[in-house]
């Protein structure tokens, strides 16, 4: 399983083996990583699973589709070029070593 590292605002890091086919959001929620809310359950409807993909990993994730791109305009913390909704980041073998940074708040 790909290893994904979640970095909290205070710099705390946790690395989790996340199952293929699930999402970066579920990897956090099911491993007791706080800071991802995912109110809508992973449907790109609420922008409460916002993460910043580490600049060194940007080539490991597919670009955002239009609906995610639009929803990123609704994040509680500022949108940056590396902003993503973690529910839309489907876990693939290419994601091994992915680092995502959690924002200060989700709503």
């Amino acid at each position, binding site marked *: 399983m790909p290893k994904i590292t979640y970095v909290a605002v205070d710099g705390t890091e946790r690395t989790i083996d996340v199952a293929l086919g699930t999402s970066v959001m579920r990897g956090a*929620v*099911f491993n*007791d990583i706080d800071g991802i809310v995912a109110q*809508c359950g992973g*449907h*790109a409807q*609420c922008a409460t699973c916002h993460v910043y993909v580490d600049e060194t990993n940007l080539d490991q994730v597919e670009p955002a589709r*239009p609906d995610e791109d639009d*929803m990123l305009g609704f994040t509680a913390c500022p949108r940056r070029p590396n902003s993503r909704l973690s529910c839309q980041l489907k876990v693939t073998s290419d994601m091994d070593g992915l680092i995502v940074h959690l924002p200060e708040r989700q709503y």
Partner: protein
Amino acid sequence: MTNSTHPASVVVVGSGQGGYQTAASLRENGYRGRVTLISAEDALPYERPPLSKAYLTGRADQAQLWLRPATYYVRQSIDLVGGTVTEIDRAARTVRLADGSSYEYGHLVLATGARPRTLDVPGAGLRGVHTLRTAQDATELRTALATARRAVVVGAGFIGLEFASVARSVAPEPGGSTARGSGRTAVRQAGRSTAREPGHSGCEVTVVEALDRPLARAVSAPTADHFTRLHRAEGTRFLFGQGVAALHGDGRGRVASVELTDGRRLPADLVLVGVGVTPRTELAAAAGLPVRGGITVDSRLLTGDPHISAIGDCAAFPQVRSGNLRRLESVQNAVGHARLVAERITGSTTRAYNELPWFWSDQFSTKLQITGVDDEGHDTEVVLGDENSEAFSVLLFRGADLLAVESVNRPADHLAARQLLARGIKVTPDDAAAPGFTLKGHLTHPAPGRRHHTPGAGRTVIPCRSSNADVTPSPDTSPPSNDPS
């Protein structure tokens, strides 16, 4: 953050989306008292929206629906209690459970939800007749769907249509498991042609609806018409203006046909009843709390008792614009209510609930998104895009005011509408009808409609035909729902 004015304990009755969120938000807000979450279901809190969608098509187990893993509740000191609450003793501030146990509360949150309505006709209790609300319901329905050949859906609401969409997409296998992945794709393609290969099509689906169109209480006519076309193109049969007179069995206790009010009989080996829900208000009523089509609460979501709140599907609360008491059934509503109550309990707010409602439904590859609420009845519809195409939005106005926006495969419109409505940016029917108008554009430049234009030149402006306007808003009608109700 906690101080001496906070209640020493909070008991939450009901562990759906709202109940879970109340407990979670209390802890997020620094509440350190005891939190007890009482659930009548033998399951960790889970999300309901997938139950009428992806969960029905796959083999996913219920753990994949969980809102949080079991460890979360331990870590957050949230006591999950399985059981049914039978009584609220307001004088003693105690709830009693069926097993004889009781819990004292400083504040009580009723998040009791709703139960599906059933048919009051002969044969309603036959095997093969389903409702859909809980994970258990969905698991049973999924098993039944795997071998079903002819499904009859009673009620063309969100639950019925989402189920119909899944049923048309799933290839039945006599062995009992449902097809996934490539099988689903193949079926979808087959659905667009006239010929279906025997044994490689979705189950036959007939939807019986008492009114003259689907989703009649929830969406405008153009949107309803779109879903009629969509489902028909995928092979679903609609029978509008029809009620169910009786269900008939096969002599062994299993449903075999559905008799309509016009006397016709539809063969069926699976019946899904999706005719709305009834809020669970019995506990509140027995405790002497006001109940009117839901547990009645004020704008701060308090019942008549300052120590008891009610939230989510079961709560009839005053709408921001109209002041009408109304229930809303959606994830957004349950979560919004829960957060407000948690903030109030922890002393960080005394504000009135005023969150903008939003909602979505997936049917086939179409996504419907709605924001706002049309509880007063709209008098004008403006369609952005072509209502006969696969993607358009309908703006619903009352006078000069925008009440709600329905978007079919137009997520950008939906999100812009959420911004406009939440920020109170004025949009008039004239603005929306002006050539070149977009919701997103209006968000950044709020007055494009001031320039001269010929009415109707750019947009379809519909001085309301049959619509929500002719439906008297009743707390018991089924508003948009993100859960299988």
